[in-house]
């Protein structure tokens, strides 16, 4: 309960007290405040039934709550159980091998190139998306007039709901051309930088995949950051202004420090989204199994995109191999998400104790 803003805590405070009494009365077996209307005349208060609707309903909802834990554990167990046989059959080191031939007679597959591509594309996506998202969030929370900020915020929320397959399709059919032109240009003038080197062909590259990912995580990061910026106490903003701060200085003094933990959490959640994104990358990456920092040449791959691309022709070992790669993805996103949530929870406590 302490994790939640005080307002909602107050709303349930009454409920919790009553619940506490229920719990105790269940222990003694005699209910001081009966749940059923008294039936008997002067025979004292009715005894609490051993198996009442009350305990049944409580058990049911507790089971539903526990279901979440069961599912998370089940995901881990079943993925491991299917991954282990494939990993046993693997004739090379799963962690360091770069190619993916799990369907051969002597299966060879490794996660190295895929994990590298997943992390690289997500990190580039965030480097592009986060500054822009923070800019839009500040625009919506502090610069735009209310009449513009509200509908625009609404549109941003809607964009967060657009399915990823649509962004993938757009990336492949529309965005590919300008990105290819841009890549050729970069290669022409900046080929002395290794990331822009190579002899082509260009286009279906990490750059394209990352930019599409950036466009996809932009609404999420924007929407969450906007929320924390809006929560900045007005009196702190006024304090900064009254000291003679310009608007930007006010934002730097009052808004940004206050929103920092929330922004970090928003970025982590965006990272989690980007790491797990499947279809948009399956449609835009060039699917090459190599570890290369070249971002403009055709290539790039990610764990999730590889699952979508090669699942169709996978045999039993192939499926196991894909599940093994999914397990790695699960572990990575679990760590990122848990870190993000831990930050949010800490911030909530901080805010509640300060209030």
């Amino acid at each position, binding site marked *: 309960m302490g994790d939640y803003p005080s307002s909602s805590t107050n709303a349930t405070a*009454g409920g919790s007290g009553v619940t506490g009494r229920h719990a105790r009365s269940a222990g003694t077996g005699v209910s001081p405040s009966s749940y059923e209307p008294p039936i008997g005349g002067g025979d004292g208060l009715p005894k609490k039934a051993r198996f*009442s609707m009350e305990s049944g309903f409580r058990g049911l909802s507790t089971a539903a709550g526990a279901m979440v834990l069961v599912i998370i554990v089940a995901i881990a167990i079943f993925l491991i159980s299917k991954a282990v046989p494939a990993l046993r059959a693997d004739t090379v080191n799963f962690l360091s091998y770069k190619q993916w031939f799990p369907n051969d007679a002597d299966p060879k597959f490794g996660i190295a190139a895929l994990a590298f591509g997943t992390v690289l594309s997500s990190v580039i996506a965030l480097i592009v998306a986060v500054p822009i998202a923070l800019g839009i969030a500040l625009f919506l929370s502090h610069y735009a007039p209310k009449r513009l900020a509200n509908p625009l915020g609404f549109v941003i929320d809607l964009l967060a709901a657009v399915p990823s397959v649509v962004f993938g399709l757009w990336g492949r059919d529309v*965005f590919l051309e300008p990105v290819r032109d841009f890549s050729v240009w970069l290669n022409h003038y900046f080929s002395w930088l290794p990331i822009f080197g190579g002899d082509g062909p260009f286009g279906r590259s990490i750059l394209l995949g990352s930019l599409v990912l950036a466009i996809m995580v932009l609404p999420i990061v924007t929407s969450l950051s906007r929320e924390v910026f809006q929560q900045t106490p007005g009196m702190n903003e006024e304090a900064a202004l009254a000291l003679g701060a310009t608007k930007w200085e006010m934002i730097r003094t009052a808004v940004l420090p206050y929103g920092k933990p929330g922004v970090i959490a928003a970025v982590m959640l965006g990272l989690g989204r980007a790491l*797990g994104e499947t279809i948009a990358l399956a449609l835009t990456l060039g699917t090459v199994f190599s570890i290369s920092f070249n971002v403009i040449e055709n290539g790039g791959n990610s764990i999730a995109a590889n699952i979508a691309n090669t699942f169709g022709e996978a045999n039993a070992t192939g499926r196991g191999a894909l*599940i093994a790669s999914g397990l790695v993805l699960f572990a990575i996103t*679990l760590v990122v998400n848990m870190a993000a*949530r831990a930050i949010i929870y800490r911030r909530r406590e901080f805010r509640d104790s300060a209030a």
Partner: protein
Amino acid sequence: MSLLDRELAGVVMTPDNIRTKKLSLVANLGVAVAAFVIAAAVVLGFGIGNWVLIVVLGWVFYLVGLLYAAGRVEGRRAARNRAWKSLIYSACILAILPLASVVWTLVSKGVGRLDGDFFGTSMNNIGARDQNGGAYHAIIGTLEQVGIAALIAVPLGVLGAIYLVEYGRGKFAGTVRFFVDVMTGIPSIVAGLFVLSFWVLIVSPWFNDGNPRFSGFAASLALSVLMLPTIVRSTEEMLRLVPGPLREGAYALGVPQWKTILKIVVPTALPGIVTGVMLAIARAAGETAPVLLVAGGAAAINFDPFNGNQSSLALFVYQQAGDASKYAPARAWTAALTLVAIVLVLTIAAKMLARRNSLTR
């Protein structure tokens, strides 16, 4: 006279120095024109790019020029304020361009196959050279899969939220809450792999003579895994908004807690719960990866979610996108438009409902 005066002239204000010069609009425009002329001269003079580079370079020159000009006229702090404001506005414009392009492409390419055939036929017996063919089977698949997923996830999610709000105390409830949040971030492909290894590969062979079998129901399971945390979270928030005195009033009348919850608390929070459920459904309807992994996709109509491959709209888009036929892209875009329309209608309806919700206001 004072400590600050010794340190930094101009920090301490007197009534005589509160005035400042403002960068005039003419100067501002002048900087803009100069920036773009220089950019054009550089780009065309050296032949290093086209109009896009001129715009980008011109914009950068303009920002730098503005910072310099404003710094000279208005002072460092005002100039910095101006520069950041320009950057923030630029970020907005920069983000609007691709997003507008997505919307424009979706509509302009999507209307191409918006005909009765598209909504009335499947892809059965449609070859690479046939320009007709439709998404009827995929729409059926989406509706059935999402519907069953909702049937599984909604009761579970609402009950789970009831546990967290009404019964859950102490460490266990805290753990559940934390993992509900963590579960929100599980990638959809992982949910698909989970159902693949659990349902398709282990459970389904029991019903199918030992052979694993794809089905729409398996897709529903995966989607419900994705919907569950969203529903728990939104329902929990709504239940917490139900005023405590409402509960206490019922308890004081001797109504048992479970009845209070079902008859008073949940109905009060119902509009908010429905909003959350609709948002979760909208998100699930757009998922591609889990359906690909456990329902397999199909070209023909299959009404039975428990038997055999099924497609879905999102999967249809993906498969048509990967199809070599020259008629496939048109089908993909129209399906994408249909999918976005469904998702947006659900989302907008949910948000409208949330606005009219008396609890959240």
